[in-house]
């Protein structure tokens, strides 16, 4: 840092008057230069960042942005599809943070570049479960830098029941006490795990998708109390005793209502979908070196711990060991083997259908039908 260098120079012991004058002269020159040309000499580079709110916050830790000379221009996502649209339009973006299921499509469309691992020395610290996920790591090449993860567990009221299966949702005694969410991916993927019979729940035939849709409609009409606009609303309803278990959810929900009521989450035996969110560098990124530097910084312990302030999970071993308080138990860090066994990182459905596998727009249309039913 310039200021640190200056301070160190001026603190050296002075041996003679001439040396003092030389040092003073140099000091004056540096001071003049820094006062007259501060912007030119230390101008920051604007880096365009497009991602989920909260995923930029860790970049503020340890003075990283200042030391890297980055002026961050963050734009927050409303949905993952915005990434596709903007990258296809060649927007000058340095970092995007898609759901891992989108990465294969972005790679195949030539919209992103591979990660230069020599510029991300922290990458090996990421648990292999996340680092080597098949969506992100293909033929020995990394296409993104994972930053956080999570699953879609069932959240329930332990004072009422201890569910083990998604099909507990259908038990007659809980009729009208089930929560669903306005989350196409979460609801439809979970229902697909339950009823589609597909090997990969996100890659289903149109007929299987129809079954998934019908099942969601059945759950909504016959068992559901409300279809909540957010997970937080669902947790609030559980606190108020309106619902006792959920189709899908998030590991952090029990923590946010812990002061009001004890609720819990579980990964039902049929399995859950899971996600990894990552830093991805677009092919046309104007500053790829800075993009790599940001991705690398996200894996430092302070940056990872910063993520937990917004209830996100950490994914390096050293960050997991540094966790304390509620954040340490919010996710199943102590039993990642069970998580790995029950939760799956499904790829996205294809953008366009070949007639055999239902496309992503088909999933969205099916979810619309569920909402309208």
């Amino acid at each position: 840092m310039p200021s640190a260098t200056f301070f160190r120079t001026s603190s050296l012991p002075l041996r003679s008057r001439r040396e003092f004058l030389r040092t003073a002269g140099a000091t004056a020159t540096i001071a003049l230069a820094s006062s007259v040309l501060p912007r030119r000499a230390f101008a920051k580079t604007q880096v365009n960042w497009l991602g989920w709110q909260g995923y930029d916050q860790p970049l503020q830790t340890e003075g990283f942005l200042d030391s890297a000379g980055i002026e961050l221009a963050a734009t927050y996502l409303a949905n993952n599809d915005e990434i596709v649209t903007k990258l296809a339009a060649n927007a000058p973006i340095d970092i995007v943070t898609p759901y891992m299921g989108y990465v294969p499509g972005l790679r195949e469309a030539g919209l992103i570049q591979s990660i230069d691992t020599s510029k991300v020395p922290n990458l090996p610290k990421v648990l292999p479960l996340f680092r080597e996920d098949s969506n992100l790591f293909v033929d020995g090449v990394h296409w993104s830098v994972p930053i956080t993860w999570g699953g879609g567990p069932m959240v329930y009221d332990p004072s009422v029941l201890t569910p083990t299966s998604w099909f507990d949702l259908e038990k007659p005694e809980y009729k009208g006490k089930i929560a669903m969410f306005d989350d196409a991916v979460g609801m439809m993927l979970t229902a697909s795990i339950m009823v589609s019979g597909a090997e990969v729940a996100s890659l289903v035939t149109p007929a299987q998708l129809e079954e998934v849709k019908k099942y969601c409609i059945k759950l909504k009409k016959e068992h559901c109390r409300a279809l909540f606009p957010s997970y937080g609303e669902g947790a609030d309803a559980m606190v108020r005793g309106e619902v006792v278990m959920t189709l899908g959810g998030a590991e952090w929900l029990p923590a946010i209502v812990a002061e009001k009521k004890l609720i819990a989450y579980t990964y039902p035996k049929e399995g859950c979908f899971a996600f990894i969110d990552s830093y991805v560098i677009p092919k046309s990124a104007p500053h790829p070196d800075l993009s790599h530097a940001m991705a690398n910084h996200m894996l430092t312990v302070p940056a990872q711990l910063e993520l937990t302030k917004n209830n996100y999970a950490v994914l390096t071993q050293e960050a997991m060991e540094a966790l304390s308080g509620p954040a340490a138990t919010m996710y199943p860090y102590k039993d990642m083997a069970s998580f790995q066994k029950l939760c799956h990182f499904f790829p996205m459905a294809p953008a366009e259908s070949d007639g055999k596998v239902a496309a992503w727009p088909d999933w969205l249309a099916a979810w619309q039908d569920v909402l309208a039913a």
Partner: protein
Amino acid sequence: MLGRRTSYLLILPAAVIYFGLFVSAALYFFVVSFWRVKSFRAVPDFTLQNYIKTFTTHLGSAETTLLIAFAIALSATLLGFYYAWLIRFRAGSWAPALLFIAMVTLFGGYLMKIYAWKTMLGGDGAINSALTALGLIDQPIRALFYSPIAVVITLTHFLLPFAILPITAALRGITDAEIESARDLGARGFEVMKDIIVPRARAGIMAGFALCFLISVGDYLTPMLVGGTMAMVGQLIAPQFGTYFNWPLGSAMSFSILSASLIILGIVYAALSRVGRP
């Protein structure tokens, strides 16, 4: 007196804003409603598929929406009319205070009202708790919340000032002499209401009803937060312009529900016009 030309010039800025920001945007979306979507992008075309999809898939939601919006507009207008009638004919020197109270509720905030009703109508809410405490019910009435009833109650409360204000303005135009004349000619209370007050306040009643109806039709937040599993059409239109990137379908749904709403308003206006006719 201003000349006709001067009048046009004075209207011009408002007209430019109206056409620039509303009419042109509406025309654009009307054109887009005939386009199609390919890979999350709207592609120019001339297809009726979006309208066909609207009528085949979303007809049920549209019917529910119109029915609920009608119930909300009707209750808000009736309550608003009664409140405005109190202000004009009964409150005397308290009239400004009553009007002020009605206007103040507008500053309460939309979301705050929704959450307020959430605490009132829920299973552990004030109403159910009170009824249980009084021994009138054993179990909370679950139909009060996460239901169409909750949507009607919440939106009626929110929209009440939108009905009160135009009706109050209309009732103020009725002079005491008109009422007294009717009474002198033998009209009783109901006849005065039917033959004098309602016809003279027709424009205000219609404006209040239309405001409440159209706002309810387009609302998607209230049903999302208190409506349970029901879906009003606004909930289905909004994501078309965001999550699904299907502007053509969103536009077709919007124009379909707008057309249906205008037809209903036309019917209501025709019915209201018959009141007080010999």
